[in-house]
């Protein structure tokens, strides 16, 4: 298994997309950190309660972008195997497809975690450097953990879509359509059918409630804290499982 993990890791590091895709969330982390440090600075004079939240908003925005780009990373990392048929020699050299796919998903999740850690660390540094009152306590650690968890979940959702569609472009388009807009539209349609509460259990909403739940006591109309991350991970398992199941039986032509 170590051999396959090394192979999957090298598949990523011998290409450039892993750091190219990290540029956007890191840039967001930089600006969100700087901007909300300034906002935080202004608010300090008004209300002490609000300041922590303002500093946290910088991290929320960062996590939101990290999740999307971790998803895109997963989509590209899985889909590119089909685009250039590089899955063929992998399956020829390791006849157990399950182990290959497991290694790919593990490496994808590791990069999802890496994206979140790098971006949130950068955002936290910027927040502090520009005068934000970020409290390095247990709740910040929880927020970091929530960020890492959501990023891993989205990297697996992306990888699952990449495997299921056998295409990085298709999976990336699906993510880009769903994450910022699609889920809202689906939520509105669900609400039209009187099932608006279901929208809180869609992956985008769950990401929000996971992150907010870690930072606050939760908000109304969102999934409650311990359930939110669990159901988000269930979405990740569903997507990754679907991609896995389709790929293990697929004819590689």
């Amino acid at each position, binding site marked *: 298994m170590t051999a*396959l993990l090394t192979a999957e890791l*090298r598949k990523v590091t011998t*290409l450039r997309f892993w750091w190219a895709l990290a540029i956007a969330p890191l840039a967001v982390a930089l600006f969100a950190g700087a901007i909300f440090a300034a906002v935080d600075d202004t608010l300090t004079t008004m209300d002490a309660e609000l300041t922590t939240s303002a500093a946290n908003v910088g991290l929320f925005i960062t996590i939101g972008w990290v999740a999307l780009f971790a998803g895109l990373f997963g989509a590209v990392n899985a889909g590119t195997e089909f685009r250039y048929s590089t899955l063929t*020699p*992998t399956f*020829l050299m390791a006849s157990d497809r399950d182990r290959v796919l497991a290694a790919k998903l593990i490496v994808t999740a590791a990069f999802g975690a890496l994206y979140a850690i790098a971006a949130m660390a950068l955002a936290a540094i910027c927040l502090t450097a520009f005068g934000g009152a970020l409290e390095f306590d247990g709740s910040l650690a929880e927020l970091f953990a929530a960020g890492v968890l959501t990023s891993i979940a989205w990297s697996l959702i992306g990888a699952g879509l990449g495997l299921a569609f056998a295409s990085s472009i298709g999976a990336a388009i699906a993510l880009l359509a769903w994450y910022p807009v699609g889920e809202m539209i689906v939520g509105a349609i669900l609400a039209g059918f009187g099932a608006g509460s279901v929208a809180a259990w869609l992956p985008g909403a769950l990401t929000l409630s996971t992150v907010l739940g870690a930072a606050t006591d939760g908000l109304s109309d969102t999934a409650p804290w311990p359930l939110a991350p669990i159901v988000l991970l269930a979405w990740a398992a569903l997507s990754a499982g679907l991609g896995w199941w389709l790929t293990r039986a697929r004819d590689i032509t």
Partner: protein
Amino acid sequence: MSAGGHPAALEAIGLSKQFKTVDAVSDLSFTVPQGSITGFLGPNGAGKTTTLRMLLGLVRPTAGTATIAGVPFAALTQPARVVGAVLDSLSLHPNRTALGHLLVYTAATGLPDSRARQVLALVGLEQAAHQKAGTFSLGMRQRLALATALLGDPQMLVLDEPANGLDPEGIAWLREFLKAFARSGRTVLVSSHILREVEQTVDRLVIVSEGRLVYQGGIDDLRRSRQGRILIAGSDPATLAIALAANGITDAQVLPDGRLAVTGAELDTIAAIAQPAGVRIFGATAEPVDLEQVFLSMTSGRYAADYQPGQHYGGPR
């Protein structure tokens, strides 16, 4: 089934593959004996690629089984050490360097990284180790794909149309390479849609047409099974043809250069018939069998037989 008592390196037993409504391969059985260079011949669309991918466990057969070294591909614990394959896709990411590409697969198979350099040298690409595969010519990509197949020092090689995109120099290089590979007792299965490409390399042939087996056996056996023509330069070809026909040798044809091409008779027999008929023979040349013609006649049936007058093939009605 196996030739010369050698065990089968690769074997297809009743392989069939249906893609939606298309029968790509139908009940195909053949054997590739160990130590042979077997040509896998058939026109484009005959099901060669699908068959090779079924042998390699990449495509699941609708029916039948395929074995490598006696077991299905999925049962091989270290497949890279048993079989290497160069398939039509070549499977190279254009933005990965040649060395980077190979290092992915040395890792996957647990081989030392130094092996990547070795196989690059083996195929003559050591100068291009740090170039991206996307900048390579098709011939170089073929070589890199071959280097990948050779990483595990496999006992057999499966090559799908390797001559595609190779220049004559590359084809000659590949021919020598495969012969050397087989001389060490290892096995090669190489597909092509042109017999001439592999005629000088292979010792056995498996010929398929429309997903079905039409011939398998030694290339010399195929050559022997078809008689060559004898070209007779004589004083009166027409008279000779009549005399031959009277003696039951009916396949004689006057060529544009005035010679008579006779099939199915030895020169001695022809001479014995010519003398009483008053035809003098100035010279005779034995024309070897054109295997390409034999191959085409075996596989082109579908073009000749499918057409029936009055039948419409698409188009407006």
